[in-house]
């Protein structure tokens, strides 16, 4: 399962009234991923990929931003 699919699965599970479509351009706040849900999501993804996101990362605005962060971290940790 690629990162976008993982995100879609998480959003379906954790967001109230999840959107029918989640694309790279979807803005996180607009699809119900608030600051709390984002923390939970990041924790979940960190566990899945065995990576740690640095605390000083700029806050992602879109689904694409978030995926870019994980894609960047994945090779570094050889996962």
């Amino acid at each position: 399962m690629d990162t976008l699919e993982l995100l879609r699965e998480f959003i379906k599970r954790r967001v109230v009234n999840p959107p029918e479509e989640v694309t790279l351009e979807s803005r996180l706040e607009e699809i119900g991923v608030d600051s709390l849900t984002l923390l939970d999501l990041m924790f979940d993804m960190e566990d899945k990929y065995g990576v740690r996101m640095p605390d000083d990362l700029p806050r992602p605005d879109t689904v694409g931003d978030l995926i870019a962060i994980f894609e960047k971290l994945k090779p570094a940790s050889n996962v």
Partner: protein
Amino acid sequence: MSEAARRRVAVTGLGVVNPFGGDLLDFFARLMRGESAVRLYHHPASPSPLAQPAVSCPHFDAEAVLGRPLAGVCDRYSQLGVAAAFSAWEDAGLPRQNGGSDEYGVSWGTGVGGTLTFERGYADFYVHGKDRAHPLSIVLAMSNAAASHVAINLGLGSSCLTYSVACASSAVSIGEAMRRIQAGESELVVAGGSEAPLSFSVMRAWEAMRVVGQGDEETAYRACRPFQVGRTGLVLGEGAAALVLEDWEHAQARGARIYCELAGYGQSCDHTHLVKPDAYGQTRAMRLALREAGLDASEVGYVNAHGTATREGDPTEIEALRQIFGAHAENLLVSATKSMHGHLLGATGAMEALITVLALARGEVPPTAHLDEVSPDCQGVRHVMGKGLRGVPLKAALSNSFAFGGSNAVLAFKALS
């Protein structure tokens, strides 16, 4: 505030998450039959074997009731609480889709709050060697989380308060909700409490106090025997109960069904000992509740006792009842329903208030289960034994809650005339 200026408070909705798994009336019917939900509870994740008589809610499916996203951001105590609040809201005939109002509030009680979340966190660190906590640990475990979820999901914009007064927590939350309505600060308050105390450390801690009722696989169901000769103590229980309390005129204006009036609330502090109860402190709380309700003691037909089945607690409460009710005590119906639903700690006041409201509204008084030989130090009132009593014309009833710390809270309910 003068008595004349105070608003009357109606009880218009009841909601419960109970160990039997059925609805409100099924729960009450089982209590009337003297059916116990106590079982030998084998803790599923304890580091050493732990089996203790206790009450759990095995049928409760949080995701099915609340939906997956909401259930996922709630500790079990919040899940139980929100479910009970939703039920009470529905029972009061209030619509979910339009949300609530800035004139509506929530008043909640819990004793140990998110203890299961804390325990999972400690296990992660100390047992599983993890080096970080789950990011939702704080918002799951905080003691006002249940109240906040109720407010958010029902749209309650007036006060959102949580009281933690040990075993009187949700009797206090109901009484303080009454105050908000009387003062005109809220038109309607969802008041109640929830508790999920079946964590390894909480169960072991109660065991260490030597106040937990004893029993094995076969006898656990009768481990909690209030007022009985040879009683051994309380049993912990999880669950939740909620009442919709409403300004009387507000309730009438929207055509709400009114169960009864919450007419009096008395609270006092023993100020004598951390855990040893004191009859004088208890009488002061009862007297205050009766006075506010404008009731003579002889008008009270039923008391849902705090009745935990501890050696010291039960006779102290009976002594307080004898002092308050005098000659009428011999005719006063008394029962301790903890014998069936367990001791829900911070939620027990709400659970017993709910049972008291149903008893009053239906003229049906549930029994103290497993009581067949009243202890000599618990005599002097009319204990309801065996099955519950039906067709009892009740004018008023009390629900007693007496907490560790010496805090006493008594709620006085009056039947519709």
